[in-house]
């Protein structure tokens, strides 16, 4: 699991180790209150091969810390514990259910001369509570999206079922956590929206409404293009988690074979007389296959009375993806899928090419893009809209940033400062590496800019950011 990125420093070979996951466990102290029954508290433990007593010890320690700190502030229990070697994060998503994640601090291994064992330097201040706290919360949200809350499994099948579900879900999910590349964007957990002109947007609206009308089983629809959201019929919080799943797991899994050329050139399906490129990303890979299974992942979303269970059908044509959600109590049949394919396939194909056309027109009119002197991250708490010119496209395996981790750390620090106060703020930092980092907060919006201007002074940097706001954010109320 260790990711190693060697770094050159002062002629000596040093090894730098990025933060990594040590433990991840879920427990409920009320399940084994008596001595000798401590094991019953543990619902899930990673890594599973850890010896039982050690599991019990670690869980007990966490329980004790939480209990102890609660005496100081009953309403806000401890969120994290900093130690030299690692950091622990505590999260109680449902009453008495605790999720704990233990992250090993990044460290530098300095080789010693004379064959002595290398010196290890832990960089305990390098990781941010906000970032990993958000990762833990995201773990829970993702579990809840596919399984419903812990309480639901308890109601239907008791502890055993819950443990099964946790095992099944987290065994795979934890492998997809890439703690070394978590950063400010994980704190935001935002949604990237696809910029689109009004007319095309209305066409998409029209498409969604028509599909929902003719296939009345469909309860909610979400529409994405290029992995960016355009329309969500789901409420914001559910969409946030679903979006995360789609963009970091489902889409990358399907785009990689495409990129690898296995599927390409895409064979257009012939339905009626209309050529279309639609296909199911969840459910049957090939409708024509007589053996095809019509099973779709189920998801849980908030509803007026708690939560509801839905089938998640993801259907994609070229770069446009539509998620259709159907009440889970209804069986999705072959006929329905064929009907959907016949109806949605041609329309979605057409829309996708429309959007693509509009997009290229807009890009052309906005002029040739020069490599800007700055990079930025924008986030709006109100609609969760995020925009980053720092991050490259996300793939299933890793999220790439184009700036040095130190700068990302500064961004995270500024974000923590912003979180402490309600008022609008602006922070300008000169980084060690001659970069300027500017953070601005206006009402519910945050903007982080990294400028690469070596000899600029504070006033020039301020002017530069003003210019950026005027060009990039002129249509929102963003105070200078």
């Amino acid at each position, binding site marked *: 699991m260790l990711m190693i990125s060697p770094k050159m420093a002062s002629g000596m070979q040093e090894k730098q180790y990025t933060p990594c996951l040590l433990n991840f466990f879920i427990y409920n102290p009320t399940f084994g209150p008596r001595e000798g029954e401590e094991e019953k508290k543990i619902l899930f433990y990673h890594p599973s091969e850890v010896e039982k007593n050690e599991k019990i010890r670690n869980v007990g320690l966490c329980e004790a810390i939480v209990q102890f700190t609660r005496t100081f502030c009953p309403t806000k229990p401890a969120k994290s514990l900093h130690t030299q070697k690692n950091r622990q994060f505590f999260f109680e998503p449902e009453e008495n259910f605790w999720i704990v994640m233990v992250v090993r601090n990044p460290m530098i291994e300095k080789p010693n001369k004379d064959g002595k064992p290398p010196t290890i330097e832990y960089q305990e201040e390098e990781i941010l509570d906000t970032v990993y706290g958000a990762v833990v919360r995201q773990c829970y949200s993702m579990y809840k999206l596919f399984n419903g809350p812990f309480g639901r499994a308890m109601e239907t099948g008791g502890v055993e079922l819950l443990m099964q579900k946790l095992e099944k879900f987290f065994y795979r999910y934890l492998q997809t956590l890439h703690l070394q590349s978590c950063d400010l964007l994980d704190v935001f957990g935002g949604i990237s929206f696809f910029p689109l002109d*009004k*007319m095309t947007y209305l066409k998409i609206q*029209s498409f969604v*409404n*028509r599909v*929902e009308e003719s296939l009345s089983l469909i309860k909610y629809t979400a529409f994405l293009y290029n992995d960016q959201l355009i329309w969500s*019929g789901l*409420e914001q919080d559910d*969409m946030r988690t679903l979006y995360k799943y789609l963009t970091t797991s489902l889409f990358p899994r399907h785009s990689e074979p495409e990129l690898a050329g296995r599927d390409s050139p895409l064979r257009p399906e012939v339905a009626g007389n209309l050529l279309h490129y639609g296909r199911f990303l969840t459910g049957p890979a090939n409708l024509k296959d007589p053996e095809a299974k019509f099973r779709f992942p189920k998801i849980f979303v908030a509803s007026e009375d708690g939560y509801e269970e839905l089938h998640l059908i993801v259907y994609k044509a070229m770069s446009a993806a539509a998620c259709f959600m159907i009440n889970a109590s209804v069986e999705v049949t072959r006929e329905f899928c064929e009907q959907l394919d016949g109806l949605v396939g041609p329309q979605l194909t057409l829309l996708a090419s429309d959007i693509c056309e509009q997009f290229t027109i807009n890009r052309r009119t906005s002029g040739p893009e020069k490599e800007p002197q700055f990079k930025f991250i924008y986030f709006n708490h109100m609609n969760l809209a995020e925009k980053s010119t720092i991050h490259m496209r996300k793939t299933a395996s890793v999220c790439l940033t184009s700036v040095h981790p130190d700068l990302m750390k500064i961004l995270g620090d500024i974000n923590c400062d912003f979180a402490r106060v309600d008022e609008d703020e602006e922070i300008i930092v000169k980084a060690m590496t001659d970069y300027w980092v500017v953070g601005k907060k206006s009402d519910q919006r945050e903007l982080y800019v990294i400028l690469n201007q070596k000899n600029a002074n504070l006033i020039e940097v301020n002017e530069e950011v003003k210019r950026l706001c005027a060009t990039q954010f002129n249509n929102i109320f963003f105070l200078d």
Partner: protein
Amino acid sequence: MAEEHYLELSENPVQFEHASSVNNVFFDEANKQVFAVRSGGATGVVVKGPDDKSSVAFRMDDKGEVKCIKFSIGNKILAVQRTSKSVDFINFIPDYPHTEFTQECKTRNASILGFCWTSWNEIVFITDQGVEFYQVFPDKRNLKLLKSQSINVNWYQYCPETAVILLSTTVQGNVLQPLAFKNGNVSKMSKFEIELPVIPKPAKLSLSERDVAMATIYGQLYVMYLKHHSRTANSPGAEVVLYHLPREGPCKKSHVLKLNTTGKFALNIVDNLVVVHHQSSQTSLIFDIRLKEPDCSVNTQQPVLPARSIHPYRIPLSGSAVVPSQPPVPCQLYSSSWSVFQPDIIISASEGYLWYLQVKLPPTVKLLQDKGKLMDFLLRRRDCKMVILSVCSQILEGSEKAELPVVATVFDKLNQVYKDYLEAEQSYAAAVESGPSRGAATQKRPVRTQAVIDQSDMYTHVLSSFSERKGVSHKFIIAVLMEYIRSLNQYQITVQHYLYELVIKTLVQHNHFYMLHQFLQYHVLNDSKPLACLLLSLEGTYPPAHQLSLDMLKRLSTANDEIVEVLLSKQQVLGALRFIRSVGAHDNVSARKFLDAARQTGDQMLFYTVFRSFQQRNQRLRGSPAFNPGTF
């Protein structure tokens, strides 16, 4: 069945003394007057026009049987034809001598087939050997020959609207020569030949006057030819063949209307529809030549609607008002005594009635299932507005609710017409602005027909009641509203804010704030101050509305005062101050409200900061930190 009669006779027919052995009845298509001539005029001539003003009664000497009698336009001069050689004239202009004067046709041995007035003092004689065009001088009581044309004529037809006379020439009669008359001039339009179903041998007159009519349809002149079914040709029924007669250029066969039956037919034009009456089945068919059936160069068309008879008509028994209890008598429709005239006149000489044929639109709604086609049809009719609006309501609610694609098609069709009108208005306005000398003279102000259904019509008659109706799913309501907005946008029509308010209201009512947020995020709902204020009012239930509203005010760029008010009301005094500076309005803003707001926060430091800021401003502006008493 009763609601399915889409044709009816006008409720107030022109009544005249019915034809009899002593009373001859004539009809003048130009003035639409019926002449009842009793005993050659000696015992009176009663002229009934479409309205009371054009009705006249007079006496004239009986100088023999009247063959034809017509007033010039405006009832100025009366022309009476009694022989085949001459026409007599009587002045009806006050103060002019009333004695008759006579004009014989100039061509020797020719006999007059008839005459037509083309203006108040210009008249055309049509003889079997040509046409003679005269100007009448009522004061001098004589005529001057303006033009003449020599050509063999079998029969003729006259279209008063366009002042075009159509002459049937050649032995078979199927070569038609149209002549246009205007301001003392005759112009020959291109002649054309009508294809006969069978060519007779030996040649003889085969094209009957009865089978040809002229009319203007959608502003264009057409010759309609009723082509009877021939046993040799394998066509299943008779056809009406339309020839388009442009002002310039050759005449072209343009449409073939399939009647799918045989028998006796008569033609009318009502509201630009070709109505074909079929006597034996006592039904009528209608055709709309603008409904496109795009398969070949000559547009072959089927009837728009299934054949139906004219709405039953009852004749109120005229008579003295003393016995009003007499029940009205049903009138025999499609009677053999009916005469049909262009464009929309039906006369029963034996009963003494002249009706105008009318189209009733409401029954067509049920008969035409395809809503897109129905809209195309309705949008071209004269009194269509309320029917269209009722169709719109119908497809949104109740048992006949249509699917969204149909709703979208209907909206698109309405907005196409709406857009065309707006564009015409705009170019007219531009022309007027560019200079009264040229622009306004060449361009007429566009006429707003009933087919122009604007947003306020839709809002008042359809959408507002529909959105409040119980039992309609809100999903459908929102989908319909968005579809209408999409359609307006597609035709680049500025959407009125009340439509957006309807959308917002519906979304808010069902707690779909996140949907609303997304619409605003993509600027689907256009910015406006009323909308921004509406959003502000939602802040209590949906906090993000505050940000949405401020963004909108900012984009409007004319709402800086409002932004300051909003910020101050939130006690964001520094924010307000920074904003007012950023837009450069710091110098002329009133310090009082800022200081007031700062004081209300109870934050002394804040108050001091604001106060100092204004002092510095004063210093900069007036060289003194003091506040001006007046402008404080």
